[in-house]
């Protein structure tokens, strides 16, 4: 099927198999390899992206479902190599180790902070609930999101 998807401001027109997952479309067809696959079952959130403003696990969505949509991925966060305050906070608070879950964490936290610019502690934890990290134990991720919040 022919689809047109805007990713981080650029529109890509591609012919994809109907069963192609959005995550594989991003990673394999567009070479946007920042979003990762960690579980195949929608549990881990490493593939989280924002589609038309909504946080989505891109392994749970078909590429054809994104036809005509605007997708934001981790590659679109920093502008001209300038890290966003959230990315900087992740660095300062040591909120990542292996970095595999990090792109998904950043997208979840970005979506959270758009909806709740000054989230409560509980809102931060709930905002990260869909993302698994095996390295950090979440404590420093929590601190980073809190620091980045207004």
């Amino acid at each position, binding site marked *: 099927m022919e689809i047109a998807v805007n990713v981080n401001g650029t529109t890509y027109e591609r012919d994809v198999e109907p069963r192609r997952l959005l995550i594989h479309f991003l*990673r394999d067809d567009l070479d946007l390899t*920042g979003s990762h696959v960690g579980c195949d079952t929608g549990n881990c959130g490493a593939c989280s992206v924002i589609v038309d403003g909504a946080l989505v696990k891109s392994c749970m969505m078909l590429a054809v479902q994104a036809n005509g949509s605007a997708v934001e991925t981790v590659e679109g966060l920093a502008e001209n190599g300038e890290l966003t305050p959230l990315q900087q906070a992740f660095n300062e608070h040591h909120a990542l180790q292996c970095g*595999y879950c990090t792109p998904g964490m950043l997208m979840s936290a970005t979506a959270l902070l758009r909806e709740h610019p000054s989230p409560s502690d509980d809102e931060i934890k709930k905002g990260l609930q869909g993302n698994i990290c095996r390295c950090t134990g979440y404590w420093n991720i929590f601190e980073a999101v809190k620091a980045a919040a207004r």
Partner: protein
Amino acid sequence: MSETTTTIAPEKVEVQKGWGGQSVPRREDKRLLQGEGVFFDDVKRHGMGYLHFVRSPYAHAHITRVDVSAAEAIPGVYGTLTGEEVAALTEPFFQISSAPGAHLKDYALAVGKVRYVGEPVVAVVAETRELARDASELVEVDYEPLPALVDARRSLDDDAPVLHEEADGNLMWTGLYAWGDVDSAFAEADRVVKIPELHFHRFNSTPLECDGALVEFNRGVGQWTITTNNQFPGFAAIMMGPAMRVGLDKLRFVTQDIGGGFGNKITSHPQLVACCLLARKLNRPIQWTEWRTDFHLSMSHGNERWFHDTEVAVKADGTLLGFRTKALDDAGAWLRYEPLGGVIWAQVTPGMYRWRHIELEFTQVATNKAPVSPNRGYSRMQHLWFTERVIDIVARELGLDPVEVRKRNYVRADEMPYETPNGCIYDSGDYAAMLDMALELVGHDRLEERRAEAKERGKVLGFGIGSTLDSGTNNFGQSRMINPELQFSGNNEVATVKLDIFGEIVVTLGTTPQGQGHETTAAQVVADILRCSVDDVHVRAGHDSYWNSHAGFSGTYASQFAVTGLGAVKGATEMLAGEIKRLASAVFGGVPVEQLELADGGVRIKENPDAFLPFMACGAIINANNAGLPEELDVTLNCRYVYRPPFQVPDVERKYGNLTLTYAAQIHCAVIEIDPETGYYELVDYSAVDDCGRRINPQIVEGQVMGATAQAIGAAMHEIYEYDEEGNLLTPNFYDYHVPHALDMPPLATGALESPSPFTPLGTKGMGEGGGAGIHAICAAVQDATGQVVTDSHNPYQRVWRMLQEESSGR
């Protein structure tokens, strides 16, 4: 989860000058935060084929027929590989074990028989991931099912199904360890505490990135390039080379970023061999990415262990004299790194305690479950859980306070370095002081008040301590206790440091980090020696065996980088500093090197700082402008150093010797509250105190402490690889295998002591594994709350509920 974490700055910390000791923000982060890391699955090649494994649906069965023709007939399917082909093209993998485990015939794919659900039987390669998976459905395999052996305790029964006929039974390895005079300890004892059975359950760390590789075969030179996330390429190479009948120069391992490892990515060599054979057979790059369920079914489960007939000799005041026990270790279907777990535990034989008389009979058996392999805390965690269980059970039996029993028996600070009954040297530490700090951080002085207050709310409060060790920098000579014919001993790691033509300081490591921040800490060590900024130091990301910066034991595993990796970095940088001075001496017309110093990104004459040669000039002179230099000036500004710890070969007969160089220590305290109606419990307070000697980067150290804590919490409460009677894994994905989420995390207070190791180049100790302290602490807390002896390392809500029922019914 906490809103704040506290790090206590202890009195012992020396004031650090320079970069070492500072929490320099990680240099890896910029790429990882922008999605610009390069993980193996991010790498693509023209014409590559995607590999999918057809796996066994049976725990135990003969393979009677394999037919790949229907799969191969599909357009877009590039080819297949069967067990029959593997058996013809390769040798069985080298076995570490002595007999009977030595007789195993282990190949990259199942040959003739399958021995666990999920065992790879056939590999299919196709144009896309999806097609490879579809085509796998068309591979026909006929099986003749056999009875499955799931419970290790039945493995040695006369009527038990036998996995490996060539080993003549399910016994893989057994050995008796005895030190001191156990009989006299029991004769001297006031009490003998008996514990019939303890069980440490099966789980692993489930790194978020599964295993995989991109494998290319260069037909002209007969060499494979293996872009992979294997975390111990040195081990993979010595397993793969002989099996594939090629020299190790034909196996080039490359990696950049790895999405977590925790030991679980050491034993991917069978799958890598299958990729290599297919890359050669099909003449195209092979891409293999393990699926999450494949990982759960087949990769690196942690050692499941039973302790039977434990007897503990104690004095009435709680003084521990000794113990004897029988450890039964479930290796699963194959010995992929095993039976090394049968000796690795001995690095921490007495735990943190002073008992001198110990006897342990270790037996490892095969079962129809996934093969076990190292998992964070490998084999020592199981044993340390055992010693901690013993302490709390003894305290309960004697009616003593677990805090007091620990303090009475801890190895004391003034006894360091302390030689254990089996000849290991605990290098430094003050365990009692650590416990005091952990108790204070968790508010132990208010414990009984809080217990009463929880009771008013209808909750049952429990408190527990986990005292544990993280032994680091293996002496591989201990493998000879498993098999005296093995020719391994000592350890090593490599680094190169060079000055390039424009003065760039370029560092290459032999390690394969998975988030431990090696690029940052290595830069800190280099900057301190070369007297420059960390920003001037370029540490190459990842590992490439073409870089020639590796040795036999290179990799990232077993809590050692701060000793071996940074020891190599220090050695190479000091060599480079010496060469820079010798070069400057020549340039300055023979000024003695003693009168030179490094400063501000160059070298100068101490008494005449205006005579300054920047690194850029040094690099340019040696690399591009060297005419006229004295002939005898032996300087390359490209220095390779191999760090080798000071080890001796252990005494194999007595099973005696120093098995690891350093002993980092962790003491955790957990406070839980149980809802007695349901057994649901929460961690309401938690403290973790760590002593890993000198910390190069305290923030990175604390990050490791946090990660190990979270994994221990998950293991203690939720995570288990559970099988049914037919050998089906009941937890093959993240739905059924629950790992902690953000909402599961308790408030955490961390603390640190620094007791520098007297044996390591920088006073550091390896500390990444963490010794499973959280498991020990939570088990102790459950015992405290329920009043029932905790005999299992895994205590989900339903088990805790049952324990409370037993308590209230007076059993």
